[in-house]
């Protein structure tokens, strides 16, 4: 095997291992939001690695530009899709895992107007409430 083939194999195996880890995370994580995080982050890196291996193997400018386009498109669009899905999950009221520490978005969704009110007002009102209790 030549040195190029070793580099291609390294990137291919790295990407396949990342995708495998992403699928295990999708199976074993306890919560919709944790599953979404595990799947999107690791799988984006894995598919980018596999595509970089293909670009190194072919080595022409046409294929490299195609693959660069695919990678940039994936890096731009996969987080947007995950954000839309997470928003839908919050709106239909899916519960977080019971050992999750922080939940900043709880109580900010208004079911009448279908809007998320801004976090500053929540923090201000809770701070005022605690001040009032101290007084």
């Amino acid at each position, binding site marked *: *095997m030549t040195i190029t*083939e070793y580099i*291609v*194999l390294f990137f*291919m*195996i790295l*990407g*396949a*291992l990342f*995708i*495998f880890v*992403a*699928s*295990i995370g*999708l*199976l074993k994580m306890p919560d*919709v939001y944790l*599953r*979404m995080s595990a*799947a*999107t982050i690791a*799988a*984006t890196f*894995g*598919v980018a690695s*596999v*595509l970089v*291996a*293909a670009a190194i*193997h*072919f080595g*022409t400018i*046409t*294929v490299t530009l*195609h*693959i660069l*386009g*695919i990678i940039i*498109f*994936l890096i731009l*669009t*996969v987080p*947007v*899709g*995950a954000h*839309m*899905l997470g*928003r*839908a*999950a919050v*709106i*239909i009221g*899916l519960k977080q895992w019971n050992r999750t520490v922080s939940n900043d978005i709880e109580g900010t969704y208004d*079911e009448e107007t*279908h809007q998320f009110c801004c976090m500053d007002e929540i923090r201000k009102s809770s701070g005022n409430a605690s001040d009032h209790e101290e007084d």
Partner: protein
Amino acid sequence: MTFNGILVGFVLPLLSISMLIIFLRLFRGPSVVDKVIALDLLVIIGISIVAVYAVLFDQPMIIDISLILALIAFLSTIAFAFFYEKRNKAIK
């Protein structure tokens, strides 16, 4: 092992096992959002399998399929999230 041997014997089986695990989550998934995440990840693994086959058969034209798959995956996920959100607003 040869170059093609490692691709056929290690990389493609790893991707196939990942696909099987994701199908498990797709059938089990407690909520619909889980199933949509699983479908999204299935298409992403499809993109990488297409890339591996392009390297295996030395055909750079096959890479174009993965470009189209990436476009379709993004559109379907966005459309699903949008309309699912709208449907739940309409029910409430």
